[in-house]
């Protein structure tokens, strides 16, 4: 579309070039085509689908073309999944961010074996959720090493139920999400000038005061961003909810419901509705967190320059 504009008169071409529109922008076209054809078009198509409910849906829930939305909000089996997803994703994201801060603070210093430790922390990113799930089932299952050790040491009488429930999914979310949060937080921390803390120390501030008055305010925007990104990861939990969770009970998350409508019931319209609602719920949380962040702190972030 930009190519067309440039074939006009020379003066128009000149005026456009002055504003930064010239043939070099054509390099953007392939990227835009991919984004429009594979992201924008399907997304709008999906929105269109949500208001074309199947006859069965209209019959059961009423509401005419909005039957899918009526079904989403009034079918407790579907609607409860919103709360279930939040109960998993919010604590998981919060834990990952809050646990990363002290770890990143300690690992900021140089010490022997730091590289090894960092690699160990990055490892789970490559494992992926499916393998983590398989490992958790074996390691933390009824006959797994954890229960065996605890039983042998006499701490418990009965094996603990660590998988196939809420706890199992939480473990999996922490194992995959924590390294990610840690990487982000440590890159934010490394952008905070150490001389600020040294100055505070010279002036007699204790470690808590230094953390509370210097590091925390500078880190706050980074914390918000990390929380958002970790939340997005935890929110779209799908394989682990099915594999190490209780897919029809306490870990019946939204993505599972969306997939059930898509793959098992072949109701693409309802599947798109749930998927869109997922996006909407996530957006609300993201906007809330970022809004809170801009309320608390305005200014440059501590990222690496």
């Amino acid at each position: 579309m930009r190519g067309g504009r440039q074939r006009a008169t020379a003066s128009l071409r000149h005026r456009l070039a002055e504003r930064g529109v010239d043939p070099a922008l054509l390099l953007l076209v392939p990227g835009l085509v991919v984004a429009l054809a594979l992201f924008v078009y399907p997304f709008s198509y999906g929105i269109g689908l949500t208001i074309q409910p199947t006859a069965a849906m209209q019959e059961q829930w009423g509401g005419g073309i909005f039957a899918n939305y009526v079904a989403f909000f009034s079918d407790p089996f579907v609607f409860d999944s919103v709360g279930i997803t939040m109960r998993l994703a919010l604590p998981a994201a919060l834990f990952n961010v809050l646990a990363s801060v002290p770890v990143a603070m300690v690992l900021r210093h140089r010490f022997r074996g730091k590289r090894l430790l960092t690699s160990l922390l990055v490892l789970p990113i490559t494992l992926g959720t499916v393998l983590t799930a398989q490992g958790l089932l074996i390691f933390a299952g009824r006959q797994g090493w954890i229960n065996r050790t605890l039983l042998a040491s006499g701490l418990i009488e009965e094996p603990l139920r660590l998988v196939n429930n809420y706890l199992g999914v939480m473990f999996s979310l922490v194992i995959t999400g924590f390294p990610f949060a840690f990487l982000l937080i440590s890159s934010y921390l490394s952008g905070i000038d150490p001389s600020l803390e040294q100055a505070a120390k010279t002036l007699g501030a204790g470690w808590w005061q230094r953390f509370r008055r210097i590091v925390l305010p500078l880190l706050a925007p980074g914390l918000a961003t990390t929380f958002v990104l970790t939340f997005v990861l935890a929110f779209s939990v799908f394989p682990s909810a099915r594999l190490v969770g209780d897919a029809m009970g306490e870990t019946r998350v939204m993505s599972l419901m969306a997939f059930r409508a898509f793959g098992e019931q072949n109701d693409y319209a309802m599947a798109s509705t749930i998927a869109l609602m997922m996006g909407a719920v996530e957006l609300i949380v993201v906007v809330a967190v970022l809004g809170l962040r801009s309320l608390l702190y305005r200014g440059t972030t501590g990222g690496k320059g």
Partner: protein
Amino acid sequence: MAASTLERPLAARPSTWFVWAGMTAFGVFLLGILVAVVVDSFGRQWFDTWLPDGLTTERYTEAWDRFALGEVVGVTVGVAVLVVVISIAVGVPAAYVLARRDFPGKRAIMLLFLLPVLMPPITYGIPLATVMYSFGLGRTLTAVVLVNLVPSVPFVILTMTPFIEQINPAIESAARMCGARTWQVFTRILAPLLVPGILAAAILVLVRTVGLFELTFLVSGPGSDTLVVAIYRGMTAAGGGEARQLISAMSVIYTATMLVMLVVALRFVNPTQLVAQVKETRDD
């Protein structure tokens, strides 16, 4: 950072011990998971004991035949390579424009490239898969490659833009003064300078594509399943899933592939730095 290393007290504070305890617990879990899968995959039978009774490598050959892993691995590698090549070819020029030019609508375009990275894959994956099926592309390799492009192209753009920004534009200006055309500037000047960044982005896209589950799962079928999807299908197959050891063997093959790629990736790129660069683009 260097200065703060000199003033460490000799005795660690309680908070430090606390952190180390947490880290140890995390490490134990992580290693436990990994070792459990590896041991299980080599075990003959493992029910009610500390270790399986007897070791065997039969599980690997069995899993290889049972799940047609030759084909699955071929599909995984083929899809990953195609996605890498296409997303680099499409993403790098776009990143160049976004790094160097200022034009009306730039912010909107940046947002368009950012959205797929920020949204849960299922949100756009389900409408996308519906479109794929309605075009008759469902369960084909084409569809698997296409859906994988959606997060990969923006990922390349987001990682390459800061990388290109740090290359001095004066070098390009000098080349243009000497009469080079845009194509020549790209092939003779920028390409050699961009090689490390392109390699890093390519390896990260490769790792992501091999590991990406949700989008591939929605459009793939027999003959176009990647390794992760095959493992998932094995675990959830009707009738309680396949034998656990077979799944473990498949998982070990998967992890080994991933680890090799990760080791190669870490030779080219420092992960902390890359995340920081990506993050800065997201932030503004």
